[in-house]
């Protein structure tokens, strides 16, 4: 497999282009290529189906039909794409290397997936709907961790039980809400007593059952809460529906940050990601999207558990396993984020910020 290392494929696509470009895989033999598909893959294999004979008659397709048939592999991320992605492996008899062509035939959702597998990089290219001035980001699905989604789905109805599994989050409101409120008030000169945050638009990423959105709504802010778990949004919506004042000020949507980022660029006075960054996959993208939707001069609030020995001892061993304060499997220590890491991400993405 070492021979595969260094085989770099470039897949860049002009948006709007409907065709795909061939990629070159350098490798000794078909078998090796297929073998690399078969081996344990980090992200995704490719789902393949065999085309019929192409009108332009790629020999490789015919010749290796059987071989490809024998090895079925599933796609992880691509399952969200339309299924009919044709893979054609071309061996140009005059050339020592193989060309891997992927022809998307029917697709209506477009995204780019980068996948690295044993040094072979290949990409399925699709048309991406985004403004040309934006860099290519990995879009949805890459910051949401599906295993985390499953964990939280099971607990969706327990959000508002103040003595239940979410009791620590309820009591953390005593720290979070004054912190957010005081920092937001510093940015304005005068405010209405009774509704100090009125006129502010806040985005609560990973709002869960609305534990943090509701206090901010009571203080006068208009809050949009997003969460990937549908049941959480339902619980949050249900809980706010009883209070006529909150009903008007809060809005919940079951979507991911990336989906809302495209519609709401530079509209929020504050973005809050509280106890969320230890559950996302791609932290850089997440922070980039957060910064995108912030107004100039807006504030980004992130609260999370630090990645230290103590946080392992207290946050995972004690809280989950011994005392049962937090349900098992809620946190993984590897995904904890230390302040230094956050700072470095912020520095590289945001050209001007104040901590």
């Amino acid at each position, binding site marked *: 497999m070492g021979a595969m290392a260094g085989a770099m494929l470039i897949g860049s696509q002009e948006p709007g282009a409907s065709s795909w470009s061939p990629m070159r895989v350098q490798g000794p033999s078909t078998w090796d290529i297929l073998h690399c598909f078969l081996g344990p893959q980090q992200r995704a294999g490719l789902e393949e189906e065999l085309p019929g004979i192409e009108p332009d008659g790629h020999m490789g397709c015919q010749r290796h039909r059987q071989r490809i048939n024998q090895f079925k592999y599933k796609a992880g991320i691509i399952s969200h794409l339309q299924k009919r992605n044709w893979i054609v492996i071309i061996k140009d008899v005059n050339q020592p290397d193989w060309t891997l062509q992927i022809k998307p035939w029917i697709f209506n959702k477009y995204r780019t997936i980068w996948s690295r597998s044993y040094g072979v990089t290949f990409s399925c290219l699709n048309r991406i709907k985004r403004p040309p001035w934006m860099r290519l980001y990995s879009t949805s699905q890459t910051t949401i961790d599906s295993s985390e989604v499953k964990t939280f789905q099971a607990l969706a109805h327990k959000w508002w039980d103040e*003595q239940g599994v979410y009791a620590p989050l309820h*009591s953390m*409101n005593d720290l979070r*809400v004054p912190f957010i409120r005081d920092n937001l008030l510093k940015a304005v000169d005068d405010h209405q*007593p*009774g509704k*100090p945050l009125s006129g502010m638009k806040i985005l609560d990423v990973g709002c869960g059952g609305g534990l943090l959105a509701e*206090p901010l709504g009571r203080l006068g802010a208009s809050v949009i809460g997003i969460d990937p778990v549908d049941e959480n949004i339902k619980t949050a919506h249900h809980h706010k529906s009883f209070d006529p004042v909150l009903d008007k000020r809060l809005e919940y949507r079951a979507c991911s940050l990336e989906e809302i980022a495209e519609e709401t660029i530079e509209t929020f006075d504050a973005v809050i990601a509280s106890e969320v960054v230890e559950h996302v996959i791609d932290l850089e993208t997440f922070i980039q999207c957060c910064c995108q939707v912030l107004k100039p001069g807006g504030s980004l609030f992130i609260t999370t558990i630090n990645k230290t020995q103590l946080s392992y001892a207290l946050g995972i061993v004690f809280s989950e396993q011994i005392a049962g304060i937090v349900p098992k499997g809620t946190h993984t220590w590897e995904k904890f984020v230390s302040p230094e890491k956050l700072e470095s991400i912020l520095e590289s993405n945001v050209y001007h910020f104040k901590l």
Partner: protein
Amino acid sequence: MAARLVVSRWAAAPVAARAGPLVTCRRWSGAAADTVYDVVVSGGGLVGAAMACALGYDIHFRDKKILLIEAGPKKVLEKLSETYSNRVSSISPGSATLLSSFGAWDHICNMRYRAFRRMQVWDACSEALIMFDKDNLDDMGYIVENDVIMHALTKQLEAVSDRVTVLYRSKAVSYTWPCPFLMADSSPWVQITLGDGSTLQTKLLIGADGHNSGVRQAAGIPNVSWNYDQSAVVATLHLSEATENNVAWQRFLPSGPIALLPLSDTLSSLVWSTSHEHAAELVRMDEEQFVDAVNSAFWSDANHTDFVDSAGSLLQHALALLRPTKVSARQLPPSVARVDAKSRVLFPLGWGHAAEYVRPRVALIGDAAHRVHPLAGQGVNMGFGDISSLAHHLSSAAFNGRDLGSMSHLTGYETERQRHNTALLAATDLLKRLYSTRATPLVLLRTWGLQATNAVSPLKGQIMAFASK
């Protein structure tokens, strides 16, 4: 079906220790039917109206809706009457601070009140006495008629009528409590049904409806209470001669304490707690006999015994040796010349303390939470203390955007006030029982105790500070 569902889940609820009566949770039929208030104060007496004022003037409650429900009519006092009312309260400096925080004290000052600077308490069965005063003779407290306080509070409530709505002649007939968890269709608010059939919802219900509190009974909060075998007689008395009249007098008779509170240079208010029969007799007898009874209650030495007298003077000499400073001689209260016609009224006395002051979305303040003997003049002051504490907790909760009915800050209020009130309630009950007897050992004990306490100024200072809060 909904009721059975409630039963099964009640058993599993971790707050089962506070399980109340099982009522079906009201189905949520949409916001259009009822207004959802943030706070409803049930009971518009001194404590209830002051609570509504305190919240109405709170800076963090500007966006909130507050309602005060009062069963009686609106009491409008166009002109202050010449005659003083016979129901007066002793307002401590702490309560005066609370009243001035929402501007009611200014109205009281413009009407009338009397400050007193010294308090003398002595025994009928011995020579022992205790004299309270502040070092530089500052005001120890104020005697204000209840009507005057009520008028001041009403005026202040009218000034914030955009935030505080007052419903007069309305009585809450029934309450429906929310389920402890979020059920599919049930309203999370407390629902109140009024006498005229209308309903309203609230996030927090404050019960300030007196010692027979409907809120407390409906919530099923257990209440420890007993009736004293005493009734209090109140009257307005004219003194024989005009004096400076800034001393409050109280004498412990075996039948009960008799107190004279200054109202003006020539007028004082009487509060005489005595047995039911004697109280009825006092109200019935003609004015001359009544005045004689009052004077002899204060002046007569009939209950003295030689033994106790000599024991008392023994201790007095010992104390004089240790602290040869001032030896306060017993001063005599002013004598009474006549009583205001029709000002004699009696009311029964009792003791009560609610086991819990708070439940989810419910809080009790004032007499609904605690009822005390008037011998220490603390009843309404404890209520005002409850108001300061609860208003402080609710204000910080509102500034933190918390749900007002949440137990986290309500239990903070309960802890703070229970600690203070329990001590005071126990002390007043103990004093009442200690001074209700003529048995020599107890008389001796209390004589020496009183004399010793009188000699220890720091101790007296502590007692005064505790009672002034």
